[in-house]
């Protein structure tokens, strides 16, 4: 069962960036790349050779593997509606957040291996903005924990609709955009600009490690989309089939939302990025306060 679950995560994840690109193409009136483009890219990269920087240590190749395992482990902990999580225990939410942090550490470490100014910049931005994103994430998870009275993901993600849920959804959506380096924080379409975050960090990767990085990034996007959906929709109270449909529909809506946001927004200037993240944090904080006061009333 747990193998099937992991395979599902691994197989479906690269679909999301393809869908986002398709949405963007439709909005712009283009045909756009096929939805399965990322699968082709990953398969092609997996068969290619590797060019290593003369400065890089073997860790440069190992770090993407560690990051991928960490993201897959975090995905394994996220419950899928009535199907529950692959592994659920008291406090698994903290393990999930810290696994994502481990993935970030590995990616940024590998970026610093090359001694490139671009990659140093990307790493610095990634870890700095993560400070605010993590604060928002903790506020969001605290508000879910306070609302449900549980500290495990499968217990926490049983929301009751209310004003807090709307705030939480808005906050988590911004965190999703920031953590996955989408517009307005970063532009996944550009390569090699001084203003990038994630793409700048992985400039020097090639071959199988790059394939692993791309796949890990898509899995992280799917993870955040599932988390956002499960934090808003009461999946556990539905029939299994209906819940699966609702989950898939929710993820689809989030994906289309990302695509639409990317079509209509330009990337923010870097000075405004912390402001937007602070707003996400405040949204999550207010939802936490609503949850806290809701219990007292």
């Amino acid at each position, binding site marked *: 069962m747990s193998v099937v679950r992991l395979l599902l995560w691994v197989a479906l994840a690269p679909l999301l960036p393809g869908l986002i690109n398709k949405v963007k193409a439709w909005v712009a009136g283009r045909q756009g790349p096929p939805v399965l483009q990322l699968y082709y890219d990953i398969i092609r990269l997996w068969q290619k050779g*590797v*060019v*290593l*920087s*003369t*400065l*890089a*240590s073997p860790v440069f*190749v190992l770090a*993407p*593997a*560690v990051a*991928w*395992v*960490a993201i897959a*482990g975090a995905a394994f902990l996220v419950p899928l509606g009535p199907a529950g999580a692959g*592994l659920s*225990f*008291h*406090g698994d939410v*903290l*393990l999930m957040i*810290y696994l994502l*942090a*481990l993935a970030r*550490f590995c990616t*940024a*470490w590998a970026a*610093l*291996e090359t*001694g*490139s*100014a*671009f*990659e*140093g910049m990307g*790493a*610095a931005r990634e*870890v*700095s*903005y*993560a*400070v605010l994103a*993590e*604060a928002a*994430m*903790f506020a969001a998870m*605290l508000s879910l*924990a*306070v609302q*449900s009275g549980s*500290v495990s993901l499968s217990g926490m993600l049983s929301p009751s609709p209310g004003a807090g849920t709307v705030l939480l959804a808005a906050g988590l959506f911004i965190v999703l955009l920031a953590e996955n380096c989408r517009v307005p924080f970063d532009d996944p379409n550009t390569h090699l600009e001084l203003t990038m975050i994630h793409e700048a960090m992985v*400039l020097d990767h090639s*071959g*199988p*490690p790059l394939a692993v990085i791309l796949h890990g990034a898509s899995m992280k996007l799917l993870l955040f989309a599932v988390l956002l959906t499960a934090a808003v929709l009461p999946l556990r109270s539905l029939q299994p089939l209906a819940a699966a449909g609702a989950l898939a529909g929710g993820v689809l809506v989030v994906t289309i939302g990302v695509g639409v946001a990317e079509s209509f927004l330009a990337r923010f200037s870097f000075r405004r990025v*912390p402001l937007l993240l602070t707003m996400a944090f405040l949204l999550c*904080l207010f939802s936490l306060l609503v949850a*806290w006061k809701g219990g*007292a009333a």
Partner: protein
Amino acid sequence: MAGTLAVLVAALAVLFGQNEWEWTSNFVLGGERVHMRLDGLSALFLAIVSVIGGAGAAYARDYWPDSEYPASAARGRVWWNALLLCMGLVLMISNGLLFLIAWEAFALCGFFLITLDNRRPEVRKAGWLYLAASHAGTLSLFAFFAMLAAHTGSWDLGPVRDVPPALFWLALFGFGMKAGFFPCHIWLPSAHANAPSHVSAIMSGVAIKMGIYGIVRFGGWLPLPASAGYVVIGLGAMSAVMGIAFAMAQNDIKRLLAYCSVENIGIIMIGLGAALLARAHGNAAWGQLALAGALLHVWNHGLFKSLLFFGAGSVLHATGTREMSRLGGLWRPMPWTAGFFALGAVAVSGLPPLNGFVSEWLIYLGLFDAATTRSGYAWAVLPAAILFAIAGALALAAFLKAGGTVFLGASRTKAAAHACECGAGMLAPMGLLAAVCMLIGIAPSLVLPAIARATGSWNPAWSSAGGAPVSTIGPALLALAALVAAAGFLLWKKAGANGLRRDLTWDCGYREPTARMQYTSGSFAGISLGWFRWIFHTDFKFRRPRGPFPPGSLRIERFPDTVLEWIVVPAGAVITRLSNAALGLQHGRLQAYILYLVAGLATLGVFVFLEGKL
């Protein structure tokens, strides 16, 4: 070495056995019998003293050898052993007067160890600052123990009931000065940066824990003021965020590590504060989780911080500089040191599957559990948890900066390019500490009985091993470690099979990248430091490039300690000025002295006269 091994065995025997060890001798010192007791709590601290003490002694053989430091090497060994002995005594003595004596001796040993290399003026300055701060704390402890003895009528230490709760504040300040939480940390960065690295390791990994021991110990014994939990948790959260923000700003790698100790002390105090809060409100189970996390973090921080200081010491030994902007690319000449340092960096950032994660996870779990109760008194855990999360993310950034700038990329100077790996005598202690860090990470259930015993001796209601959460996280972390290793191996094989080729780092098609084009530690920290401008008072020097052929430009930023240079030093200056003004009274003119006498007598007379009237 043999001695530390024996002490370790004794401490572990108490931790994992059932008995407490108590010994009262007939030997009388200062009018008091020597009375020692080793219970679960002191044994926990004693174990880390012995582990780091042993590892540091082994490290010092190669790091501070007789051949290079003929004057101070032997002196260092003597003071090292004296320091270990005094810390052991502090942990075991159960008599207020003798505790003070041992405490003072411990502080003095620390002073002599910090100033081993006493020819350098900055070392002497750091030593004096340490001594002054340490005595400010000891003064408060003198008052504390004296008032304790006055209220109980005996110097014996133990749980007491009929003393004013305000005494706790004296203990908190006195021990806090040693523990170095923000803003009592003023002595810590310079002392830890300027001491020899093995001394920094034991000062940062173990000696400041003596302050924590004092706070934990008397937090358990004294009747507490109602606000104690809130104050401790607040100080902890402030210390965690401020400590790591200052760490992020440093360019000196040992100063960075020292400030990170301030952060970790803050983390321990968050856990302790939550425990105090829980105990004040009916021994809620989440308090036990937080306390277990805090006590485990005492061990973990001791282990990985000593590992990191040893690593920094090896770098200093090999290159002769602590400035990160002069290092870089050290993984090539020093692969083992780099590997151990990286492991320590992962552990100190609290990432799974290493030991730092286990203890931070327990503290978080305590805070989250407290939040789910929605009790009116538990509100303090919400800001604490969020600030803790911010500190954790900043710690990750700070250690990426440290590890990345020192060990990765290209060498920035010749010294860094020509470094060579240190000997086995220095690598072995690092390897040992790294192994223990991994072991506690993937098998936390092994140390759980010890922690449960310590929480039980702090609060008898919490002696049951709150081990259910730990026994679930352990296998998960073990599986994670195994998967990480397997995935790394597979990807390496795959990349090798597809063919590996080496080429220059890609820099927009520019074929001649130089080491000076790398991102520096200052730029790396720039974004997050901008958010803390309000607390930094940065010294800033900037010479712009001018004209068509600029002769050279520079930009220097220094981040002095705000508390020290903007609060303590000005306050000290005011006191000095007042004292100097008072000095004017003493000028050697006999007539004036007689006038003082007469005036004093007259005033006294007036007082006595008025007293009689009233």
